[in-house]
């Protein structure tokens, strides 16, 4: 238990200390001194016997209680002040109403909280902590060299506020640990609000007008979720309901349906599901490590964590069904929207939103198979998406473009980064790698529970395939004789990226082990039993993987596959480039661009439709939860 407390407290305290650190060397030393032990500890955590709860009495002591309350009030007032300063009435109204609710609860709440219930560690918390500690830690380390370049070379116009930046990263990390280990709802909300605040400050880091706008949008949407969270607590208090997550999940459904719906609402805002997807799309104005962090290990994962946590309450009722539909709609809209985009980061952002939709769908279904699939999706997605974001950041840094069509020939220009990206993309969608295994499980779970939802997965899956393969094709296509860009990777970047790629690869290969060691024990902790992938299918999947692994081996044979010739361009080729003598002797240059399905699909239109549908669904969900 001391280890758990240390995991929460160490990044938080070090983060505050980071505010005072000015020197680059000292900052790097402090960051390593925090991130490396935290990462190791979060890995060690997987070996611990779970579940267990906190037994330390002083956690519920008045000192901690009052300081948390004071901090929460301060955060609320700060956000309200932000709203006043930027003249966003919605922000200060939301922030102030939350402050009012918390204040009212503080005055009216009687009886001490039980010490035993404050923290609770089970396998799901351990998995989330592992993602946060290992991947989040990797991103923090990567950010050291990235931000140095960012301020000293690429973006001299942006004010250098690195002390604040790294402080926020660490506080974010600590809050995420707190969030996954908290069982007491007030504690959970405390950390929930910290992540909202940190993401607001990080998105607005560059202080450009666009960054301000997008940061404020993120704040508004997440405050809405925060308000739903405090309403859930308020309701439970009024009804003398359980004030901690585990009792909430265990109690009779009638009392907890509305709070569960409100908490799911909060989770949906944080997981950037429709209609709240725009905050995550806007978040890419921030430096790349922030995008990687928001998309893979923290923030959005807090949202899906919340929905998956609630799965036992959501299973088999109308609130759960609506959550599942929102997830499916988001999956389809996100995937289709991604096919229309050529901006690499925007494609990644839509794909994150779509994949989170799948996880939310799993939470809404809530059967053991669905939970299994959802947890595995979280793991695979965190790794692959982090790798992809960092790689795209590097490509943008070197080529000054993040247009997918400009990535033609990347496999020659930046071979190592290109191969890392291909690994990440294969991990995102291709059979038999991780995500596909989970999608397979999602499909089976959906068909048994709500077969009609399978149509969403069918269409969304096809669109997913389209935009990833199109991108992969652009990377492997080589037109003319492009020159390699040197130096491609620094030593520090290479070690982080190779580590991520190795981890992506290892989780794909070893997913039965992960399932056996972490995910199935979690289901057992929930007293659920399920028959997952059958033994025979597992062997087939492994065979398929062996088939794919033949591909890299074929490079041993490289250059002996045939006689090299020039591509056919529609005339006599000139030089080695994409130039040819066309009809009437005119020298013509050929160029290719991907298809973005314009005229059939439109991003804005898709997003609008999805938003309207999901707003209606959310309203229906709350209505049903109130009346049932």
């Amino acid at each position, binding site marked *: 238990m001391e280890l758990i407390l240390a995991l929460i407290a160490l990044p938080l305290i070090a983060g505050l200390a980071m505010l005072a650190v000015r020197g680059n060397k000292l900052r790097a030393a402090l960051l390593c001194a925090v991130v490396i032990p935290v990462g190791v500890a979060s890995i060690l955590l997987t070996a611990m016997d779970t579940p267990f709860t906190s037994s330390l009495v002083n956690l519920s002591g008045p000192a901690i209680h009052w300081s948390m309350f004071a901090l929460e009030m301060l955060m609320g007032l700060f956000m309200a002040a932000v709203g006043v300063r930027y003249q966003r009435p919605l922000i200060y109204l939301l922030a102030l109403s939350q402050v009012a609710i918390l204040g009212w609860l503080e005055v009216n709440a009687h009886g001490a909280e039980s010490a035993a219930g404050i923290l609770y560690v089970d396998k799901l918390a351990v998995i989330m902590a592992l993602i946060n500690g290992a991947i989040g830690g990797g991103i923090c380390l990567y950010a050291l060299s990235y931000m140095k370049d960012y301020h000293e070379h690429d973006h001299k116009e942006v004010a250098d506020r690195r002390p604040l930046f790294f402080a926020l990263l660490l506080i974010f990390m600590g809050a995420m640990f707190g969030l996954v280990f908290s069982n007491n709802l007030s504690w959970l909300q405390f950390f929930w609000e910290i992540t909202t605040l940190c993401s607001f400050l990080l998105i607005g880091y560059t202080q450009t007008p666009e960054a301000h706008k997008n940061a404020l949008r993120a704040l508004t949407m997440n405050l809405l979720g925060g308000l739903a969270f405090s309403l859930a607590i308020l309701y439970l208090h009024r009804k003398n309901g359980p004030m901690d997550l585990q009792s909430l999940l265990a109690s009779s459904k009638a009392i907890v349906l509305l709070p569960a719906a409100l908490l799911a609402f909060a989770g949906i805002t944080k997981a950037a599901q429709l209609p709240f997807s725009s905050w995550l799309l806007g978040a890419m104005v921030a430096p790349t490590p922030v995008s990687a962090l928001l998309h893979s290990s923290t923030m959005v994962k807090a949202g899906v964590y919340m929905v998956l946590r609630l799965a036992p309450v959501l299973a088999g009722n109308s609130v759960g069904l609506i959550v599942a539909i929102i997830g499916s709609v988001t999956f389809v809209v996100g995937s289709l929207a991604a096919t229309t985009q050529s901006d690499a980061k925007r494609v990644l952002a839509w794909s994150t939103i779509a994949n989170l939709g799948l996880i939310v769908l799993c939470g809404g279904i809530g059967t053991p198979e669905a939970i299994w699939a959802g947890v595995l999706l979280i793991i695979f997605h965190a790794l692959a998406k982090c790798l992809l974001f960092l790689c795209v950041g590097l490509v943008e840094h070197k080529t000054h473009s993040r247009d997918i069509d400009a990535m033609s020939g990347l496999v020659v220009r930046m071979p190592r980064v290109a191969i890392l990206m291909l690994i990440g993309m294969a991990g995102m969608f*291709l*059979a*038999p790698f991780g995500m*596909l295994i989970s999608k*397979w499980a999602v*499909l*089976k779970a959906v*068909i048994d529970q709500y*077969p*009609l939802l*399978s*149509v969403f997965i*069918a*269409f969304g*899956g*096809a*669109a997913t*395939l*389209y935009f990833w*393969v*199109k991108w*992969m*094709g*652009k990377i*492997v*296509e*080589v*037109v003319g004789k492009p020159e390699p860009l040197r130096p491609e990777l620094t030593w520090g970047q290479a070690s982080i990226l190779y580590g991520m790629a190795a981890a992506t690869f290892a989780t794909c290969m070893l997913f039965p082990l992960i399932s056996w060691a972490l995910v199935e024990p979690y289901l057992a902790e929930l007293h659920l039993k399920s028959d997952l992938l059958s033994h*025979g*299918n597992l062997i*087939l999947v492994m*065979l*398929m993987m062996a*088939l*794919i692994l*033949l*591909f890299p081996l*074929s*490079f041993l*044979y*490289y*250059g002996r*596959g*045939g*006689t*090299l*010739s020039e*591509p*056919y*361009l*529609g005339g006599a080729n000139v030089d080695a480039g*994409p130039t040819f003598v066309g009809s009437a002797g005119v020298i013509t240059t*050929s*160029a*290719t661009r*991907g*298809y973005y*399905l314009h*005229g*059939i699909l439109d991003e804005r239109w898709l997003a609008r439709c999805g938003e309207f549908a999901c707003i209606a669904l959310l309203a229906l969900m709350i209505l049903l939860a109130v009346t049932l």
Partner: protein
Amino acid sequence: MIPWLNILLYLLLAPVVGGLLSGLDRIISARMQSRQGPPILQPFYDVSKLWQKQTLVVRSSQNFFIVVFLAAVIFTGGLFFSGSDLLLVVFGMTLAAVFFIMGAFKGSSPFSFIGAQRELIQVMAYEPMILLAAIGMYMATRSFQVAEIAGAGDHAAKVAGHTLPLVFALPGIFLGLLYMLIIKFRKSPFDLSSSHHAHQELVRGATTEFSGRGLALIEIAHWYESVLFLGWVYLFFATLPVLGIAVALLVFVLIILVDNVFARLKWQAALKSAWLVTLLLGFGNIVVLSLLR
């Protein structure tokens, strides 16, 4: 024991049957156009000729994609004919298609690029329907195992004690699947990505930059694919094997007829119509099925 025998039979016989079907395709097409057409063994002659020709490539690795493509097609067919999980078969087919498309992208000429893009659009067009077909079969038989689906037929509908073929429960899905087969076989009106007939804007599309052994492998993979897809058709009638084979052959002839009757459509039309068919026939069938049961 039986699955292994099935796999062996598939490995050995599928290219023979597929090649013969391809020869038959050319004869029937020729007769529809009042021509004599080549001998039925012509596809085999073509492939053996290709095998002896010099293999020209634009990029050294492009043919490796094709080798993995062929391996994935064979593997997927093996899954199907050994009676394994139908969803895994769908994913395996997608995997194979992805490798073919990547090979075409690697070809790096504008024609090959356009072919790859269009092939990708075709995959996106037909994939939802194929997935829904697998789901429909599961809803009708409560199993994803091809062996059990083939043995089960339509449980709910029995006439005089006999189990009716699956097609009675899944008529919409059957028709929808036929539509997707035209796209999958790259037949007109959906021969968008690579066509047997010359088209100025496309040349040979996805296969433009393949020659010699690379092209031969693509042809062989196509034979395996034909057998696999007709296997899907057969599955709808699997309780009556003779009828199943007859329908599969009939479907094959029907596709050739469609190929010869229609002019090529744009990719927009392919995508829109395929998804509309999927929604109306495929999803409609699933809605009805879930209401009835």
